[in-house]
């Protein structure tokens, strides 16, 4: 994968804690300890221009996130000052010269329920309406709802859940399926290993109308700094990326045989990948829109990109250095989809390469259609490829993480 690095002079006076793209990827918001939020817009030359900057909080602003554009141009922020805020961009409709078309951001609400630093804030999936979840350092998850999406100044606190762990991050399951009840996962940066798992899964129960903890992810006992559900574009399972002392990717398969109330784990959770390549604390994880590439960044000052090949094993495909250089491009094994393109190959070469690989591959491909390989209790996959053998080490490794 080839990237062209551009430096952006953000001019924040302190650390930038979060960067967020809007739904379309053409606007960007940054937030910093300097208590400011900045909004950047991309022009037709693909240059990012600062279009708004304002003091949002009276403490470090930890996270910034965009709402679905259906609800307008709306941002939410959370801060060390124990509040979360919802902001809306207003396009001036006044008649005075210079007033018309002027854009500015106004605070629509300030959510002051937390008694400690609010460490993360995320809008819920659009299908659920306008929901906002926050988590705080004292371990409380709060779910707010704007009953009237036209009135962003009115939010009601719908649910308050206490996890008893200092929380650092949260993520909604973005699934589009009505079969999946609303779900979110939270991570704790509590360093004390004896307190058990640092990633907890909460699910909404339609019958009891309550959120309840259904699972705690086994094997994650170190401080968790970031957590992210992969966009679920019709996968039968959920994927969760975790930034802890390493990068982890988990799959979560809903169990069919479990009654929700029974208190048993709702998901069959397996670790499909675990990377220690950063050699130090991993701070962030982020998925691309299709959930096929994971970006992780750590104290080594590098962004590493991970991609799953068709053998179901995750490989590093690129390393980007924080100083704007691309450390290296790792060519993965060519797949039938042709995911490789290195800096060296000219623009015409790849397509030819794809064509070749197609000829090589096509013969075995169709003849290798095989019935579902039943592996273990819950792993079911259809296998295509030259080898009839089931997927390699990643899966074997993951078996050890499966429930005893």
């Amino acid at each position, binding site marked *: 994968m080839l990237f062209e690095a551009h430096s952006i002079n953000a001019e924040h*006076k302190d650390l930038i804690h979060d960067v*967020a793209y809007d739904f379309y990827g053409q606007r960007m918001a940054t937030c910093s300890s300097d208590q400011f939020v900045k909004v950047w817009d991309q022009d037709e030359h693909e240059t990012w221009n600062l279009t708004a900057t304002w003091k949002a909080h009276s403490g470090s602003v930890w996270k910034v996130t965009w709402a679905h554009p259906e609800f307008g141009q709306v941002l939410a922020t959370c801060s060390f000052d124990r509040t979360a805020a919802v902001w809306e961009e207003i396009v001036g409709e006044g008649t005075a010269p210079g007033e018309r078309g002027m854009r500015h951001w106004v605070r629509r609400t300030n959510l002051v329920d937390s008694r400690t630093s609010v460490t993360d804030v995320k809008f819920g999936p659009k299908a659920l309406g306008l929901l906002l979840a926050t988590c705080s350092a004292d371990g409380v998850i709060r779910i707010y709802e704007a009953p009237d999406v036209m009135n962003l100044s009115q939010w009601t606190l719908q649910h308050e859940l206490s996890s008893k762990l200092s929380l650092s991050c949260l993520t909604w399951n973005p699934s589009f399926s009505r079969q999946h009840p609303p779900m979110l996962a939270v991570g704790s940066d509590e360093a004390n290993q004896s307190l058990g798992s640092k990633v907890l899964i909460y699910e909404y129960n339609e019958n009891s109308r309550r959120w309840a903890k259904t699972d705690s992810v086994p094997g994650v006992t170190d401080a968790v700094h970031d957590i992210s559900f992969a966009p679920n574009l019709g996968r039968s399972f959920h994927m969760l990326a975790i930034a802890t002392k390493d990068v982890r990717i988990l799959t979560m398969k809903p169990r069919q045989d479990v009654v929700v109330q029974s208190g048993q784990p709702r998901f069959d959770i397996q670790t499909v990948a675990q990377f220690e390549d950063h050699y130090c604390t991993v701070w962030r994880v982020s*998925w691309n829109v299709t959930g096929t590439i994971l970006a992780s960044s750590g104290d080594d000052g590098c962004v590493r990109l991970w991609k799953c090949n068709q053998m179901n094993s995750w490989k590093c495909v690129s390393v980007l250095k924080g100083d704007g250089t691309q450390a290296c491009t790792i060519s993965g094994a060519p797949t039938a989809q042709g995911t490789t393109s290195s800096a060296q190959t000219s623009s015409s070469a790849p397509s030819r390469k794809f064509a070749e690989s197609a000829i090589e591959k096509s013969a075995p491909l*169709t003849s290798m259609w095989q019935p579902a390989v039943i592996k273990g209790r819950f792993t079911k996959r259809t296998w295509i490829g030259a080898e009839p053998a089931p997927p390699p080490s990643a899966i074997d490794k993951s078996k050890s993480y499966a429930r005893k």
Partner: protein
Amino acid sequence: MAKTMFITQEGPANALALNKDNTQVVIAGRNVFKVFNIEEEELVETCNLRVGKNLNHLNFSCNDVAWSTNEDHVLATAATNGAVVLWNLNRQSRSKQEHVFVDHKRTVNKVSFHSIEPSRLISGSQDGTMKTFDLRIKEATRTFYSNTESVRDVQFSPHSHHNFAAVSENGSVQLWDVRRPDRCYHQFTAHSGPIFACDWHPEQSWLATASRDKTIKVWDLVSKPVLEFTISTIASVGRVKWRPQRKYHIASVALVVDCSVNVWDVRRPYIPFASFNEHKDIATGIAWRGDPHTFLSTSRDCTLYYHLFKDATRPASKANPQGVAFNSRGDLAYACKANNNLLVKSTKTPGNSKRSDQSSDEFVQASSHMHWYNKKMNYENIWFLGCASQYMLSGRPLPDLCDHNASVAENLGRTTVSLVWRMIKILYSPRLGDFGLQLGIKDDQVGGNLKDKDGETERRDKKEEREGEGSSEEGSKKTKRQLRLEDLKAGTDSMGDFFFGDGEMDPLSMDFERGNSVGLCVDIITHDWTLPIEAFPLRHEIQDSSPPPEQLNNDSPEPSDETQFLTIEDPPSSLLTVNWVTRAPMWDSSVVISNALKHHANAGDVQTCASVLIALGEKRRNLNHVLDEAIQEQWLTAYIDILTRYKLWDVATQVVKGLYSWCQGCAHGGHMKHIQEWLENNVECPAGCGHQCEYT
């Protein structure tokens, strides 16, 4: 002192003070007034000053307490009733009260000893005055009128012995010379709200002020007051105290909301350098124990805490120093902490600075680099956009759609996707379906009206053949069919064409489905079947029975009747074989297709899944038994979501702004002008819903 420790009292203290050699601490509040020895492992109460007959006397109710800077036995308190009370710990009697100055008219907020002249005491009161007292003559010597409503804090300057600073509720700072009680020599407005506290820097000519406006400001008072630093905190600031031996560090406590004691580095005014979160309620007083490593604090939660600096939490260390985000085009934004450490270390002469200074310097140098990585040669993007714009998903017969889409995918280099389309074409081609269908129906006939069904099949057969005749030559047809079968094996491309439109396809596929359900019924009888074995005979079946239609065309219809008859004879011979034969439709394509689609979905390629589903149209229902409708819906909504991210929508689906009208019949509409233009030339709804719109 080895550890952070605390002791709980019967009431909250408003203030605390240390004696000059920092071995004892006094705490004072409305209901508590005690002296403790600071010992190695604990705080030991040595004296309770709240003794006597009249404990409710307001002289005991203290806003502030000060320990003489020279005499170890002299204390002063500021009482809520306006008295300044002097205490002598060396008094033999139980009561240590030495003298009461009743000069102020209202509550006294603050008392403070002069750092060099131990007999000089100053007080600041709610009545807006400050008074100095001479402890030798036990008299108020001077009164300073601030001309403000109330004085909240007053403190002698450590740098010039005649000067003191006073802060008041109107947000102003006054600098006085004790020799000139008529007026202050400097006055300036420091905050937009009441100032609750001030503290002189022990070495610099700096004065820190703490206000309800949530800020701490540091003023350089060397000549004219210059604002050096502003720290904005999350709540009203109640007290501030500079950290000894650390030029830039200052401790603060909040008046509301925040229970922690924060130590700030004024050069990084956004996040506390260290934070002490032991208190359960807001802290009321802080006192450094003469060194930068220990301090004591009182709180409204009735505790007195002894803090070790090393036990502090460092909020900055938990703060995530990086941000990374993907956008829908695969570009990546990345912000990370700028690493200046190497640079700093190289410029510093070794041994010049203490270790703690260095960590503090690193703390201060907090800035981020931000980069935007524009993805070049973004094949996923090209694929997606190419397919999204070039795919044909309806309006033509399925095989045509498949061919078109397969070639679109092929041209974009997506061979797997191309194969999927070809597979769909093959599996849903009427020919193959037909064989399965015939067998399935035959099975049906075992249980029911043979004749009718048979006739129906035959008729259909003929119809198909006729259709075939019309569209292509027989000779080429056979070779093409063989080609197609080979396709199944080899997967190579054949641009095979198909002879049947949607009209023929539909009833077929419906029967096909029926065949399926029969297969499912049989399934219950024999469990031990396996897919590969089944699939194998199917091919033979096809090969065996492929000739009949050809013959049918070449010869008269009669022989074909015979072949049909023959196959019908088959079933009664043995039930097992019948089951075997019916398995053919069971191997049915829907399983393969759904697996293929699921595979693509799991690989994140929902585009293929959704496109195939749409292209299949009504035939999509055939998949329902293997592919949950909810999953199908999920794929479609997910695909729509991604298309939306790329803004691949029609003008017609956008939200209309301005003057608009809509048809009451179908609820579609648009800008009035545009609708008018459209309707001049058209009758049907512009949205394509087929409604004949009426606008009245």
